[in-house]
């Protein structure tokens, strides 16, 4: 790894000013993604501005009954927080399903949001990758695509967004608060990550000098009746092949509120808008769940090795909704 400058930020103003002042400077959270990518030679910042001492590590109640999560809250503390476990169980489960106990103790909410893809060709500098090197081509196309996306892909990039936490946040209508030397703005989580299109290297709508300061979760009845289901190659400590974040409120046998988001299958945290449209007002039956899954997956584009994800996603969606309808919340 090439050496770099290191600065500790003590306040938000200092942190954003330091990164704005130097084009090669980057924010450093827990380092579990950035340090790995630097060691692999994929990233090579000139300076790291350590933000882990900023006072952004609290989870606070919002007046409307929602929650405000500081960007420096560690993943393990987020998942262990009583209000998250009780009112947003899908988020606690999603975070707990990611990485390992040690990594969750290090990883921050901001870093989790902005972690980069685990596409093997993105890591391997001997192969082409439009995300790593714009215009160089895509090693995955015609390569080994078992872990790649079936939704939101483009001829330039097929890589999945790897975060479990973001799938839950997509289902919960989370809003990301961002600060820079130009001021503060709020970005809905669903608008934070971009589809790859023909510019897969532009992964989010954030400017390099924008600091994520918090994530807000609005209050919602459906959030409390929620679950996360992750399917992967081994029981634990692996990225998702398919994951489902879901919330479901049923009254008199009919769906009155539903939230559905998918991970492991899409190029960004994927809100299943089509499925929600089909389900809202429909009877809470397996037939409806299957119809909703089919509607969402109708636009799936499969590669040589990942066709199995369509059926796996369908079954995981149906199973997760069925469990919510019969057993209720994971809280």
């Amino acid at each position, binding site marked *: 790894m090439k050496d770099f400058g290191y600065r500790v930020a003590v306040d938000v103003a200092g942190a954003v000013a330091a990164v704005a002042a130097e084009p090669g400077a980057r924010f450093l959270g827990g380092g*579990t993604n950035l340090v790995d990518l630097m060691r692999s030679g994929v990233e090579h910042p000139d300076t790291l501005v350590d933000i882990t001492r900023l006072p952004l590590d609290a989870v606070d109640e919002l007046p409307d009954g929602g929650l405000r999560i500081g960007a420096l809250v560690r993943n393990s503390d987020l998942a262990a927080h009583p209000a998250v476990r009780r009112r947003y169980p899908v988020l606690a489960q999603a975070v*707990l399903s990611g990485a*390992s106990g*040690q990594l969750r103790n290090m990883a921050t909410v901001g870093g989790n949001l902005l972690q980069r893809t685990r596409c093997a060709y993105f890591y391997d500098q001997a192969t082409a990758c439009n995300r790593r090197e714009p215009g160089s081509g895509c090693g995955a196309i015609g390569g080994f695509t078992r872990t790649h996306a079936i939704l939101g892909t483009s001829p330039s990039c097929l890589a999945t967004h790897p975060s479990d936490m973001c799938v839950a946040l997509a289902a919960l209508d989370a809003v990301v608060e961002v600060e820079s030397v130009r001021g503060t703005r709020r970005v809905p989580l669903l608008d934070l990550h971009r589809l790859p299109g023909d510019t897969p290297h532009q992964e989010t709508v954030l400017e390099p000098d924008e600091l994520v300061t918090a994530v807000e979760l609005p209050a919602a009845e459906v959030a409390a009746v929620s679950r996360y289901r*992750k399917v992967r190659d081994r029981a*634990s400590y692996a990225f998702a092949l398919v994951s489902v974040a879901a919330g479901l409120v049923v009254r008199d046998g009919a769906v009155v509120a539903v939230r559905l988001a998918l991970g492991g299958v899409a190029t960004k945290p994927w809100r299943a808008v089509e499925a929600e449209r089909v389900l809202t007002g429909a009877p809470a039956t397996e037939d409806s769940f299957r119809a909703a899954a089919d509607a969402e997956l109708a636009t799936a584009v499969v590669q040589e090795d990942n066709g199995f994800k369509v059926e796996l996603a369908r079954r995981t969606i149906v199973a997760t909704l069925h469990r919510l309808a019969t057993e209720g919340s994971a*809280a």
Partner: protein
Amino acid sequence: MVEIRMRVNGAEVSAELEARVSLLDALRVRLGVTGPKKGCDQGACGACTVLVDGRRILSCLALAVQYDGSEVTTIEGVDHPLQAAFVRHDGFQCGYCTPGQICSAIGMLAEHAAGAPSAATEHVAGAPALTRTEIRERMSGNLCRCGAYNGIVAAIEEVAP
């Protein structure tokens, strides 16, 4: 170069380091504390697990400079019933993963005692009992190439309250 100070296994230490030096390399190469092992150097095996201010972390993905002012405990600083339990239950063969397993288990037991749920917890809002399934899930960040998992789980189960 950045100057850092830490307490490592109870002793005050200081070092002048390049920012790129990991906590693992700082411990092993600069400070001669070789208990934490380098298995993968990419966060995937857990052999480098140490306790920082009582919490388990991976020292290979930690930049040492980020931990200036911290209290670091490695296997050299551990005196815990788990160590004898690992011997009794054959919780290892070659022993390479063991320093990480034991530091991880100590951190894990503290997390459980504080009421933290895991991915194996049926109802995340409740306080789960430390079943074998829970132990396996909570220890999944520590791989053992020798496959001593049954002994590792048995040792932790014996020591767990």
